[in-house]
């Protein structure tokens, strides 16, 4: 049984699946663009070098699937301001360097703020138990991670613990992308983990409204390739449906208990996603009943103090939204590699390690590499 997870990484099997994908896309006989909305998918694709195995006519675009990257400037500012007020912040590693209006958390840390890097919200609670200082969990991540935050909130955390929620919810942003005029996206690969919680049914209304197929895929190379095969098959058959290509982990109704916990603690509000503009119902905030653990209620966060520094003009020129929709590419952006670089990123695509703009910046375009021999 120990060997089974590794069968989803078998290079021989993967090559056969890649060949199937080639065949199907060749049948389509035209360029086709699909989108995935999960940072883990992009990580896996990048890590295993899968892009070099995809047919050239198939464009697998990374959408707004990196929750940290789409965390907008004001949200980062809230964390930074708290840190500068002397509050101890616990956050995930990739949140540390995301730029705010003036500083990132890393900059605040260099100035003496106390920031703990964690990889589980439970760690944040442990830190709070071991100290008398105020500890704030700066909680980023999509619905899968929000469930974990909800669980620790419901598990009687100590009085010096509170949560600054920057959680996001994926299905609403898929609507935005699908509705963008000129969007080339013909199908979506949905994140397996989020679907473990929400169930595959959550995508039915989206598919009905937009007539675009959604395939839920896992994260091993085989899962991703199989997911793409199923997606292209649906596109070929002009059949908009929800398909579950991750049945070992995803069911139609998902994890009901987890959903209950999630919606007991969080409510949806609209908000800006970095590089995408306003996403109705795309942000998760703590409900009023949980004001006692809400960092936004416990502390006064003086956001206006930063507004004098805000560079709104630059942010307005960011075209990440179009890039993620597949309408334009980084070279179309006036800021790309000039005002917007990995050291000074304006939009989500440049913040994410696997974002389109970052990849183009690092490699001068999509690298033309072949599959393994």
């Amino acid at each position: 049984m120990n060997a089974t997870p590794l069968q989803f990484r078998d290079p021989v099997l993967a090559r056969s699946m890649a060949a199937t994908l080639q065949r199907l896309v060749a049948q389509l006989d035209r360029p086709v663009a699909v989108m995935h909305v999960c940072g883990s998918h992009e990580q896996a694709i990048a890590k295993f070098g899968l892009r070099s195995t995809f047919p050239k006519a198939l464009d697998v675009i990374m959408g707004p699937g990196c929750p940290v990257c789409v965390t907008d400037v004001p949200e980062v500012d809230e964390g930074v301001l708290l840190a500068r007020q002397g509050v101890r912040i616990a956050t995930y590693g990739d949140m540390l360097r995301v730029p705010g209006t003036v500083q990132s958390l890393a900059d605040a840390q260099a100035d003496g703020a106390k920031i703990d890097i964690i990889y589980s919200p439970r760690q944040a609670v442990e830190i709070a138990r071991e100290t008398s200082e105020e500890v704030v969990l700066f909680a980023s991540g999509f619905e899968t991670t929000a469930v974990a935050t909800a669980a620790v909130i419901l598990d009687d955390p100590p009085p010096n613990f509170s949560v600054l929620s920057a959680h996001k919810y994926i299905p609403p942003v898929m609507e935005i992308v699908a509705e963008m005029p000129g969007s080339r996206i013909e199908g979506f690969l949905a994140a397996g983990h989020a679907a473990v919680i929400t169930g595959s049914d959550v995508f039915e209304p989206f598919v009905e409204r937009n007539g675009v197929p959604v395939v839920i895929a896992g994260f091993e190379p085989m899962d991703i390739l199989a997911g793409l095969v199923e997606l292209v098959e649906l596109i070929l058959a002009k059949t908009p449906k929800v398909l579950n290509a991750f049945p070992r982990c995803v069911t139609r109704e998902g994890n009901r208990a987890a959903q209950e916990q999630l919606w007991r603690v969080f409510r949806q509000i609209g908000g800006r996603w970095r590089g995408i503009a306003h996403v109705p119902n795309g942000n998760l905030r703590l409900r009023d009943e949980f004001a006692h653990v809400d960092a936004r209620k416990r502390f006064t966060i003086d956001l206006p103090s930063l507004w004098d520094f805000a560079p709104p003009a630059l942010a307005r020129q960011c075209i990440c939204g179009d890039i993620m929709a597949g309408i334009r590419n980084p070279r179309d952006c006036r800021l790309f590699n000039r005002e917007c670089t990995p050291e000074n990123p304006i939009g989500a695509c440049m913040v994410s390690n696997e974002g389109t703009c970052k990849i183009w910046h690092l490699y001068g375009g999509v690298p033309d590499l072949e599959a393994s021999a």
Partner: protein
Amino acid sequence: MNRVALKQGGGGRAMRALIEKVFVRDFATLPFDGVGISAMDDGAAIRLGDEWLVVTTDSHVIHPIFFPGGDIGRLSISGTVNDLAMMGATRVLGLTCSVILEEGFSLEWLEVVQRSMVEACIESSAPVVTGDTKVMGRGELDGIVINTTGIALTRTLVRDNGLSAGDRIIVTGSIGEHGLAVMAARHGIDVDGKLVSDVAPMNSMIATIVDKATAMKDPTRGGVSSALHEMASKSGVGIVLDERSVPMTPQVRAVGELLGIDPLHVANEGKALIGVHAADAEEVVARLRMHPLGRDAAVIGTCVAERPGSIILDTGFGRRLLAEPEGEPLPRIC
């Protein structure tokens, strides 16, 4: 006011940028005959007749100071001995040892650290010949800082820029152990005692192959990725790295996956990357494997003329470009 950030100590691009901007630019204007500061190699080499006097220095600030497989003492000796070895200088003439202690530091701990240093000196036949000790007030320093400087003589100077297209890249053993062992210890990840730092002085192993090395570098901070990037760009070649042939223990793989950290970006303190002509590869691997530290030595890559400065990773599924690490590797959520 601009301030130094943690990532600038991490060994990646950020650190190189800091060094170049603040230090190298002006120091490099002073006249000097040999391999000096602008080369930013593992050490400096000063011409002495028909030999080279190789000098290197390192400050050690690691925390925790005791980690699975070693401690700051062992690290401070091994690190400097290894830098000398990477320049081809495997017979160490002498080491200096400067220690700065925080008031209140445990004397027992100091003794353990000192014993580790002595052990490492014996292993590498490198005597500590002089040193310095200072004490700073409580809170002015984090525990202990050790600086070691080493000097050695060599006739064969090996640089990190000597690769040519067609050369093979050899690694002397399994990677990712030091950095991940330290990180696992810091984050309280229990690995059943099998994830330990590889910290060790390599000079006796390197001595067996120094005549065949076209280039050498030890993948410390920034890992194999950082070191190969430097070698590739200084040499003007690209490197194709075969991921499947990179030796790695299952524990390193597992902890890397769990924390979302690529072992290729993680520090090693007892491994070397060696460039060799293709015809010498087999023999060099054989010689390395005869040494206890080199049992898992393997050829992991080939130098190519295309894409100079880039590292292409062949994953077994497909190819991708290996990015340089930005700063300190951090556990990721997504």
